[in-house]
C-alpha cells in the first residue's frame, strides 16, 4: 500500500500527536472518566491506522516491525494476568484489588460520594488499564499493519 499526497501526509503528521495524546489521556484517566484501556487503545490504534493509510505500509514497516508489536501485545497480556495473580498472592482471591487503602501508588481511597478527580486512586485498576491499553494498541495496529503490508503489491500493480 503506497502513500498518499503531500497534503494528506502533512495533515496526518499534525493530527497524529493530538489523537495519540487524547487516547493516552483516556487510558490514564480510565478510573475517573468514561473510557478505559480498550477505548483509549482503540483511539491510539486509529491514529496509527491513519498514519498507515497516509504514508503507506512500506514506510511504516521500515520503522515499526510487526514482530515487536507482537511482543508488546504479549507483554500487555502478561502484565494483566500478573496483576491478577498478585491479587491472589497479596489478597485473598484472583483479581483482588490489593493496592487499595494502602496509601501507596494509586492506593488512596476517595471520600464516599465525592466527585473529586484525584488520579492517585483506584488501586490496581489504573495499572490494569495501562496493561490492557498496551495490549489493544499493539494488537489492533498489528492487525491493520499486517493486512495492509500483505496487500501492498496488489495495490501498486493497478
Amino acid at each position, binding site marked *: 500500500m503506497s502513500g498518499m499526497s503531500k497534503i494528506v501526509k502533512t495533515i496526518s503528521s499534525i493530527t497524529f500527536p493530538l489523537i495519540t495524546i487524547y487516547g493516552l489521556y483516556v487510558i490514564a484517566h480510565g478510573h475517573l472518566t468514561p*473510557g478505559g484501556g480498550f477505548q483509549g487503545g482503540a483511539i491510539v490504534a486509529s491514529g496509527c491506522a491513519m498514519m*498507515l493509510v497516509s504514508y503507506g505500509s512500506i514506510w511504516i514497516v521500515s520503522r515499526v516491525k510487526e514482530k515487536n508489536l507482537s511482543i508488546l501485545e504479549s507483554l500487555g497480556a502478561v502484565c494483566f494476568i500478573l496483576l491478577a495473580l498478585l491479587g491472589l498472592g497479596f489478597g485473598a482471591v484472583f483479581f483482588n484489588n490489593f493496592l487499595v487503602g494502602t496509601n501507596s501508588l494509586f492506593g488512596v481511597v476517595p471520600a464516599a460520594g465525592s466527585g473529586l478527580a484525584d488520579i492517585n486512586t483506584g488501586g490496581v485498576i489504573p495499572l490494569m488499564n495501562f496493561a490492557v491499553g498496551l495490549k489493544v494498541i499493539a494488537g489492533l495496529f498489528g492487525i491493520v499493519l499486517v493486512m495492509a503490508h500483505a496487500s501492498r503489491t496488489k495495490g501498486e500493480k493497478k
Partner: protein
Amino acid sequence: MILEAIHIILPILIVAAAAFAVLTKDLIAAAIAVAAMSLLLSLEFYILQAPDVAIAEAGVGACLTTAILVIAIKATKRMEEEA
C-alpha cells in the same frame, strides 16, 4: 422534546445507512456507509448515557473496521459482481 425527536430520527438514519450498505454495488461506498452507521450508533449510545460504549464504538467501528475493509477491497475488486 428535542431528545425524543433525536431518538426517533437517529434509528431511522442508522437503518437507512445499513440498507444503503447492503444494496449498493460499490464496495467502497458500502464501507463508508458502514462507518457512518457506526458513527450514528455511537451518537445513539451517547444520548442513551453510555459514553464508554460510545467511545469504543466510534474508535473500533468507525475507524479501524473501515480501514480493514478498505484495505481488503483494495486487494480485491471494487465493484460487486452478479452471482
